[in-house]
């Protein structure tokens, strides 16, 4: 499609044509098929940049579409700065296992170089599915820094970023703090990765024999594997302080390791006994409380799983807001 023909009306017409075609195939379909089900529960905008693992991005999108059927709009920032606006519409269909009916979602792809990227934004206003939530997953660091970003973000009910992959993660946290306190909904996948750590800590303090534990708690150690200190450590420390007080001593201990993960463990140090939560090989986390130990599985976390968690929260997250406030004070 040439740049002159990329417009909202044409893209929507193309989408309409797709459904007419799919409906026609349904009525003429084989006896093995029970037709096509059109499913849209939100507009999902995915911001990517050319050459940056596009395959992974489209695989993640396809997986998310299965669980959150959406009108997906992929905004691609081209490497060539003066690349003109291009766009196309197509359907993503799949046949759920054991069913005879295909489920189809709409997908629109818009791409442009940096110089004309605002053109994609002008089209977006007319392309979002009416009356449904709009979620923007900005997967590209370049797009996050692009002048068009605020306008795209303003269109969304929730924006998802991954601060650890941005060019200046701590700056990004400050930005998120401002946005969240201005009332905007944000999710940060770096924070989302910590959910199971936080849940494991919470489970420890569900145990009745830990009730008096805080009385003797001296300090907490966060052990991490790779230097420089990952932004996740900042988040975790801020979370612990949000519970125990901002002046509470939280030490960050670098324990060099070849492990692929960043957080190695947490140690709650007391005069009498320590509670240690340690990540071992094979994705298992062990918790040691005096003589008692227990295990938890930490499955490999992929992007769709993290985004899925964020998609389940389309409301203000007060704990994240408080943690961002503390993390950006340091």
């Amino acid at each position, binding site marked *: 499609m040439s740049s002159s023909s990329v417009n909202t009306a044409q893209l929507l017409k193309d989408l309409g044509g797709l459904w007419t075609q799919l409906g026609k195939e349904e009525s003429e379909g084989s006896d093995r098929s029970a037709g096509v*089900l059109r*499913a849209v*529960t939100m507009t999902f905008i995915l911001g990517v940049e050319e050459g940056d693992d596009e395959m992974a991005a489209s695989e993640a999108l396809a997986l998310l579409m*299965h*669980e*959150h*059927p959406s009108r997906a709009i992929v905004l691609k920032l081209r490497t060539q700065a003066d690349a003109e606006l291009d766009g196309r519409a197509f359907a993503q269909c799949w046949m*759920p296992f054991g*069913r005879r*009916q295909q*489920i189809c979602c709409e997908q629109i792809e818009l791409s442009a170089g940096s110089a004309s990227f605002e053109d994609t934004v002008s089209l977006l206003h007319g392309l979002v599915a009416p009356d449904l939530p709009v979620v923007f997953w900005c997967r590209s660091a370049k797009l996050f820094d692009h002048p068009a970003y605020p306008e795209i973000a303003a269109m969304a009910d929730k924006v998802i970023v991954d601060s650890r992959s941005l060019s200046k993660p701590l700056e990004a946290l400050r930005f998120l703090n401002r946005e969240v306190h201005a009332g905007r909904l944000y999710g940060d996948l770096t924070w989302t990765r910590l*959910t*199971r750590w*936080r*849940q*494991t*800590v*919470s*489970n*420890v*303090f*569900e*145990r*009745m*024999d830990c*009730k*008096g534990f*805080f*009385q003797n*708690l*001296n*300090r907490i150690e966060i052990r991490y594997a790779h230097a420089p200190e990952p932004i996740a450590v900042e988040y975790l420390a801020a979370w612990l302080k*949000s*519970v*125990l*007080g*901002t*002046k*509470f*001593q939280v030490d960050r201990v670098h324990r060099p390791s070849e492990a692929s993960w960043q957080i190695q463990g947490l140690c709650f140090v007391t005069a009498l006994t320590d509670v240690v939560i340690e990540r071992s090989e*094979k994705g*298992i986390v062990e*918790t040691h*409380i005096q003589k*008692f130990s*227990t*295990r*938890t*599985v930490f499955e490999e976390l992929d992007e769709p799983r993290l985004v*899925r*968690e964020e998609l389940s*929260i389309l*409301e203000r*997250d*007060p*704990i994240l807001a408080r943690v961002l406030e503390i993390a950006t004070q340091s």
Partner: protein
Amino acid sequence: MKRRLSCYAQWFMQQTTDSANPFHDALRFERRIPPCSVLIFGANGDLTMRKLLPALYRLAYERKLPSGFSIVGNSRTAMSNEQFREKMRVSVQKFIENSPFDEALWEDFAKGIFYVSGDISDPACYAALKVQLDEIERERGTGGNVLFYLSTQPSFYASVVEQIGAAGLAQHPGGAWRRVVIEKPFGHDLASAKELNRRISAVLAERDVYRIDHYLGKETVQNVLAFRFGNTIFEPLWNRQYISHVQVTAAESIGVEGRGAYYQEAGALRDMIQNHLLQVMATVTMEAPPYFDSDAVRDERAKLLRSIRILKPHEVDSHAVKGQYGPARVGNADLPGFRQEQGVSPEAQTDTYAAVTFFVDNWRWAGVPFYVRTGKRMPKRVTDIAIRFNNAPLSLFSSSPGASDSPLAAPNLLILRIQPDEGISLRFQSKDPSGGGMKLRPVSMDFNYGSSFGSRTPSAYETLLLDALAGDSTLYTRQDMVEASWRAVEPIQNHWLENKFDFPNYEAGSWGPKASDEMLARRGHEWRIP
């Protein structure tokens, strides 16, 4: 070292209950389950192996169980802890659905599994269980909280609970909770249900008795509440002014599958309608509770069940149909009739099919028939609720095949599909663009649970076990509900026991006896084909 704790943490330390974990994140974490154990009576049985252990393992996998969580199995078979653990490992691996099995996690999970053999009628068995539970409390920090799961023959329920009480297991000196879960059937008639309750309530308070009805644990049944009370557009129509009638269907394509001896005594009315289907019907028809709380929701369900009109003996024949399948050839398979099934008497009078017309005597539903049917060896496995609205009051398109006075009229129909294709469909009239003129054609607007929420749906047992551990009895049946539903079916049950039927009266692979169609036809209605 000087420490400064937040006000929240200080407040936490002052609490005597476990309700103040400051690390909890209600938005992202699962519900908090306090440290506890589950003691399963009948742990060597099918239910434990197929449903309970796979559900508990899955909950552990998803980090929904507290650390130190323990399971104690009991049955008569002599086994060591190791043998029981191995047996459970095999069954979890075999029966866990849509979930990975992680050896390392199992190793840790299995450390919390124990086995105590013993006869449930022997007091010594409970003394041994008490020793085991005390040891678990000490070693694994479970705080003394115990959920007793009675996966035994129903005839043992009352005596097991009495033995639990006599052994001092129903109370904990430190005030920890003790709860008991029992599986249906809750009695075999109203009198036995009352007697069961009398004996159980002598030991445990009603709030500690969890009567499980796995139908209520199904996501789609719970979604009926969300659909009705989370939206405003349907509730104004949800009454006798707009609804012509309601059909509840629970059909199974299979026969009795080796359970002939059991089924011969139970029958479809007792096995399905008295519990599952009346609960589903109550969920569809109850009033909105003032808030979403287990007592408030169950109060409304109970109120509805009490409003079901009790049939008089002379009304039973016109309001209920008893059926039993006979042999038939379906596809290229010759299917046996019920009386030819293993363990079934050739003279059996058992109902493998039951259809009942219920009426709810309250202002909302007065005069609206609720047709409830269930059967074995039907053409397919399906459970759904069809709400059929009244015809349009005026026939504007009288020459159209879809017009309200036409034989092809298709009034609005709302289908709540419970299984297998969980979802909701709304049928309405649309103009058919082909051929010109004002021709109407019924079309369907579908919401498919699987396509809108593709994530894994927890099994009913996962949901219900987690609820019981959290002390949430919303999806459990209360004694007054049990008694109300027995009251509703008892006249039918008695009438059927007193009369002899000419069976079989429907072929395997069909939608049931002719008499069932006639029952609806008398009111100008017909069964839809689900």
